[in-house]
């Protein structure tokens, strides 16, 4: 019964998917390689094309252009069952009229296995997900977490080399969600097969994945390890979407000592280490800055921050206690959200309230240059002078 678990590497080669002639493509000339045995998360807001990619790998959609390779073989036009993949659906799609055991055994029944054989194998899988006692129940008699495990067992019974998970945790409540995402990761490690997991939740992607693929409007914005995505987001979109970092921006005033000195919209100056990147004076550059590297202290309202560098003056816009740290949102006057995550023991020594004037500062080395550039623009002042 158990086919050998072949090579589960995935190649998406220049794939485009357009649903209606003339409409915006859901997926736009996308290339992606996923190594065998890795855990990959496709992350993006709804409508970014992540589910479409998953469904094309599964064989439930056919690309308009381009190829899907699994284990090095072109599978673009094959039926799902010929691909060695298995899919777990968002609401699990457990068959409501079949027992848990028959749900899990379904794929073997379709392949013509005898009742004894398929039930034996199904029981084995139910044991793995600790649900052997529920074999004769109907899905509606199980909790959400149990249903998810049945769906997992049902998908795994054919020994797929790739498991495709469409928002596998979205039907669970917060508590179970945190618990089950650890379990998914464990199962993937144990089986050593490729998992591709679609989600719109940044923390979920970073928590479980080896590789995170951040998408927007049918294209990949960045594909990298979870750690890289968090530490070194490529551009302002990824930085904002992942959320652990602030986006800084300013027009380059001068370049000194391997760093660009840029003037922000509010007139503050920031220093951005260039690490060899080339930027031109006048160009608008962007940088990322970890929220937990920002220090916040009270500010004398009279103090002008104009001549300070690597510090923003502002007012506290919102305070959110997060348990082990406090999230302070600071209004720095340029419309971009600026957040400092301050350790709880530091914050509660002298709690700063909403509306208080503060100064936020950070070490230069924590700023990273992003790829976005905008050409030099005539400033309002120049326009007025002209």
């Amino acid at each position: 019964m158990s086919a050998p678990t072949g090579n589960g590497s995935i190649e998406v080669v220049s794939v485009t998917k357009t649903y209606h002639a003339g409409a915006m493509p859901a997926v736009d000339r996308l290339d992606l390689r996923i190594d065998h045995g890795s855990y990959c998360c496709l992350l993006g807001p709804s409508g970014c094309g992540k589910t479409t990619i998953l469904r094309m790998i599964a064989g439930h959609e056919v690309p308009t252009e381009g190829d899907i390779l699994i284990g090095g073989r072109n599978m673009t036009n094959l039926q799902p069952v010929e691909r060695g993949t298995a899919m777990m659906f968002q609401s699990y799609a457990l068959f409501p009229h079949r027992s848990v055991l028959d749900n899990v055994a379904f794929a073997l029944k379709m392949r013509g296995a005898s009742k004894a054989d398929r039930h034996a194998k199904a029981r084995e899988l139910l044991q793995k997900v600790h649900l052997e006692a529920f074999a004769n129940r109907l899905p509606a008699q199980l909790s959400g977490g149990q249903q998810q495990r049945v769906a997992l067992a049902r998908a795994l019974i054919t020994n797929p080399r790739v498991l495709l998970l469409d928002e596998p945790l979205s039907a669970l409540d917060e508590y179970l969600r945190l618990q089950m995402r650890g379990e998914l990761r464990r199962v993937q490690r144990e089986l050593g097969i490729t998992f591709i997991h679609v989600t719109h939740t940044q923390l979920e992607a970073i928590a479980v994945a080896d590789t995170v693929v951040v998408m927007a409007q049918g294209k990949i914005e960045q594909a990298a390890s979870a750690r890289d995505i968090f530490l070194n987001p490529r551009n302002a979109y990824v930085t904002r979407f992942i959320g652990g970092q602030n986006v800084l921006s300013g027009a380059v005033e001068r370049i000194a000592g391997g760093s660009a000195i840029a003037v922000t919209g509010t007139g503050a100056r920031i220093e951005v280490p260039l690490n060899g990147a080339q930027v031109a004076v006048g160009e608008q550059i962007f940088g990322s800055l970890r929220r937990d590297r920002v220090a916040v202290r009270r500010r004398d309202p009279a103090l002008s921050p104009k001549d300070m560098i690597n510090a923003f003056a502002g007012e506290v816009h919102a305070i959110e206690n997060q348990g082990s740290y406090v999230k302070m949102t600071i209004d720095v006057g340029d419309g971009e959200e600026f957040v400092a995550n301050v350790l709880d023991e530091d914050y509660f020594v002298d709690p700063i309230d909403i509306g208080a004037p503060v100064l936020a500062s950070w070490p230069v080395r924590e700023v990273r240059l992003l790829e976005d550039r905008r050409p030099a623009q005539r400033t309002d002042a120049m326009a007025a002078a002209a």
Partner: protein
Amino acid sequence: MQTTASGNRPWTFYVLAAVFILFVIFLYGPMTVIYILSFQGPNGGLTFPMNGVSTQWFHELVEPGRSGDIAGSFQRSMLLAFVAAVLTVAICVAAGLGFRRRFPGAAIIFYLVIASLVMPGIFVGLGISLGFQLLGLQTDWLISGLGAQLTWTLPFGLLVMFAVIGRFNRSYEEAARDLGATAWQRTREVTLPILLPGIIGVALFGFTLSYDEFARTVLTAGSENTLPLEIWAMTTNVTSPALFAVGTVTTIISFVVIGTALGSIALIQRRRGRNVTSH
């Protein structure tokens, strides 16, 4: 959620309850008279007082010739209702599944089918009998009669089926496909069983609407009567309580049919748990 702050029932509740009790009395009072009179004694007449109690009028129903062709017309009506129910289910299920994918002209066909609900029944029958006449064909209860009834049962069945299928989650089918089921296996093992309660409902509609049909059937049944036509003929000819005995028997049959159908739907729904149909 079960109770709200205002504990007492408003006066409107009692008005409403009264209206319903009136309704039930208005409908079931006369029917009860029929049921009672059907047990009229051998020498009793069409109204009260009861002249003894007997089941003689029921016996008369099965003896051919005594009170018209009740037994024959009953058999015809049952067969017709059964065939209409089977065809309605087959066509509505196929249409419900097939028409999920849009195609050019789908909306027009759909509206034409639904519009047939509001076509005056007598005229549908007249038109069909006229059509048969023009084509030189003989009208017959199982041909033109069945066709005329289908113009009534199919639109109802379709409305129910579209409502049922609208709540059907396509990911069940995709999951089955992902697990290696062929198109036929998907339909047989997944789609039809999940839709079963709705399908029973459509069958019930088809059976009941056909069994009780009059306006469309009267001009298309040809020389042999269905049960409602036969009863109609009896109301003008027969002057014995046998007429009431027919009423009692057909009411019992109707209740058995609806009870079985609703009971099996309830059973299926309870087995699967409440929350399943909704997603």
